[in-house]
């Protein structure tokens, strides 16, 4: 295949056959109980050096409690898919967990920009659309997928995409490699103990990433009975056999919100965005993550029931979220 142009980024690429082999040997087909604590899930399933992806953003239905647990366990050398992300990149880099970032949207706040400028984390350039498309290719079991964009830009130059001549039209077309993360974190509205999961509202690539990833950790607001899924199969976002761990974490998206359940806590989010240097970062990490045992303790000591009640109260819109 004649390559007209090649982006220079390093890519984390898994041969589709190697991914299949992983699925064959590691993914249980039968329903087994996968309920565990966040400590157990992250300890068992996230390894140093893993490629990490997650669904939605710090503001809405992001897997924030799981991300905090990764930081708490001081995982190292993670490669992060910064798709549509806001402050996760900053926290994961500031805590020394992440060393590489595939950039879709790297988040606001000045901290992350600064550490990138200082060369303390390696970044590779993609876009929200191309990372989502790479995930789709990963879920379709194909090594790459063509795109009509990235073309003509420095984004392409600093990505891992290739440009070839399309054999059907003769035009140049961009090919992006499949993405098969090692770990996918997703926070959902409802799950059962086997891992069946429901999201209400939109998602970035929940099913794509669950299918494309070697290890999938679901945290949920609510545990429901497995029979519920079989009554309304159209509502199933992720079937159990893609999932490796289920963690029951009410308010697990805090300080972000979960549609129909609770609103985001902008005050806390501003606190994270206000971090400008390592010292402030360490203070935040110490206070909200390292010194806190787990998510329940975090809610109890660092948020408080009164605040949570207020966030629930603010989530007045319930339409469509059931």
């Amino acid at each position, binding site marked *: 295949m004649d390559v007209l142009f090649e982006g220079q980024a390093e890519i984390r690429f898994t041969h589709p056959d190697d991914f299949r082999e992983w699925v064959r040997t590691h993914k249980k087909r039968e329903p087994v109980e996968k309920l565990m604590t966040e400590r157990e899930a992250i300890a068992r399933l996230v390894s140093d050096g893993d490629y990490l992806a997650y669904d*939605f*953003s710090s*503001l*809405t*239905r992001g897997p924030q409690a799981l991300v905090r647990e990764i930081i708490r366990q001081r995982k190292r050398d993670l490669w992060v898919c910064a798709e*549509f992300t*806001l402050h996760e990149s900053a926290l994961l880099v500031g805590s020394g967990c992440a060393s590489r970032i595939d*950039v*879709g*949207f*790297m*988040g*606001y706040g000045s901290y992350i*920009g*600064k550490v*990138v*400028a*200082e*060369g303390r984390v390696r*970044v590779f*350039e*993609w*876009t*929200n*659309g*191309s990372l*989502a*498309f790479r995930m*789709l290719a990963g879920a379709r079991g194909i090594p790459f997928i063509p795109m*009509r*964009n*990235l*073309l*003509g*830009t*420095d*984004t392409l130059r*600093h990505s891992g995409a290739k*440009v070839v001549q*399309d054999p059907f039209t003769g035009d*140049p*077309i*961009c090919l992006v490699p499949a993405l098969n993360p090692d770990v996918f974190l997703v926070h959902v509205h409802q799950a059962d103990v086997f891992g069946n999961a429901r999201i209400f*509202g*939109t*998602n*970035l*690539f*929940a099913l*794509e990433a669950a299918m494309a990833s070697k290890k999938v950790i679901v945290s949920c607001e609510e545990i429901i009975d497995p029979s519920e899924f079989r009554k309304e199969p159209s509502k199933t976002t992720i079937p159990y056999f893609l999932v490796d761990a289920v963690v029951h974490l009410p308010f697990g998206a805090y300080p972000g*919100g979960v*549609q129909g359940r609770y*609103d*985001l806590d*902008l005050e806390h*989010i501003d606190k994270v965005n206000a971090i400008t240097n390592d010292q402030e970062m360490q203070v935040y990490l110490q206070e909200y993550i390292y010194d806190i045992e787990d998510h329940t303790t975090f809610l109890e000591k660092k948020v408080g029931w009164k605040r949570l009640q207020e966030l629930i109260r603010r*989530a007045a*819109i319930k*339409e469509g*979220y059931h």
Partner: protein
Amino acid sequence: MGVVEFTDTELMICSAARLLEDRKTVFVGWGMPQVVAMLAERLYTPNLVQVFEFGAIGPRSLTPFVRGTMGGPSNVYQSLQWINMNWAFSYAVTGYIDYGMIGALQVDLYGNVNSTLLGGTYERPGRRFPGSGGGNEVASLCWKTIIVLKHEPRRFVKLLDFVTSPGYLDGPGAREKAGLPRGTGPWRVVTSKALIGFDEVTKKMTLLGVLRGVKVADVLEGMGFEPLLDAKLQEIEPPLDEELRILRQEVDPSGLIIRGERMRTER
């Protein structure tokens, strides 16, 4: 007629909102474009179909605008369809999205956009910013892209520090040659002083209008390149009372989005 006071942000929001057509679709980027779409929907384009990259198709977003939100319940209220990112961009690739709206750190004569870094090298940028997000998709795939940025001369440069999202690249035919969809490209640049278009033949930026009371020389001063001047240069009306009322009372009563440099112009 008196004097009207507003911020540069308010001006840009109002100017951009007036550009949108009713009964069309628009791909709405994060931040200011969301507020533009809300204002337009309330005042000019009740049948505008908003599309968000995270999969909300046709929402009727509620006011007040929740700062920072993209995907929250009031943002996606009463959508036609909730789906995911790959589907959202599919609407753009297949030609269903008429307008796209994005911000920029820098633009050049051909409407190429930088939202990635300023200064230094790629590995060691002087300052690093969030990157494309969905901007590259929007600028590549929507029929007409509107770029919104503050009118600071240093933002209008001869050579971008980084080409994040494609304008007309290096001139006529370059997008098509690169493989981008035919007939697309930047359509307007909305700034805090001017409205800029692109010449149909040369694809170069063309000054279409300036804010009432602002001189063309003020607009051009310090820009790294000189745009063409449209034969019929328009005067841009400052924000209307009704526009400001909606922005300040309905859309952003906290004033956190619409704050900015204070400006004043004769009514």
